[in-house]
């Protein structure tokens, strides 16, 4: 799915995805990205967007699961090779 349209959509997404904070969980294996995520979220305000970086294979399913369980909204994801980027809107 590497059409020019895909590239444009991604660029637009990147511009629109104005993040308020980044949590770098690269190098951490499940469950640590989620544990650190829960901790970080306590410092954030409703409506803010947190960017979470992870390269753990488990994170792909862990993060959406965490979001659905806690009522926080996963508003975007990006994959760059092994690097996973999640954009979570705080409830």
């Amino acid at each position, binding site marked *: 799915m590497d059409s020019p349209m895909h590239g444009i959509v991604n660029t637009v997404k990147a511009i629109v995805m104005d993040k308020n904070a980044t949590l770098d969980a690269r190098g951490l294996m499940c469950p*640590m990205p989620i*544990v650190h995520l829960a901790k970080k979220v306590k410092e954030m305000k409703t409506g803010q967007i947190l960017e979470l970086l992870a390269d753990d294979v488990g994170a792909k399913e862990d993060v959406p699961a965490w979001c659905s369980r*806690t009522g926080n909204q996963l508003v975007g994801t990006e994959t760059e090779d092994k690097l996973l980027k999640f954009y979570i809107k705080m409830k």
Partner: protein
Amino acid sequence: MTDKFCMVVSEGTFDKAYMPLIMGTTAAAMGSEVHVFYTFFGTKLVTKDQKPKLPGMFRLFTGMFQKRMNKVGIPAHDEMMKQAMDMGINFYACSTTMGLMGVKESDLKPGVKVLGAAAFLKLAGESKTTLFIG
């Protein structure tokens, strides 16, 4: 209403030490109220100055495995237990086991509470999930 998540641990090896901490911290991160009940040989894991080893022949590889875990962000057992307590996870030692094995309350790690079977079963009955870890 917060979901309750209970675990029972009856063995004292390295793997059984980490399983409730890993699952417990994840559940707590997802908003659950976590209760972990240690009984029989699991009591070793909530007593001071115990160093759990991998089971059987693997005991020799404990140090190496621990290093690998540290590398991916999973802390040492005591440290992770403290983190778990900070997240509100409840750790209990079985009162009967303590009596039978001569474990005193002062032998328990700080923050570990004492609980009996009936009280634990009440928690388990109210839980969405109860797991027997080992």
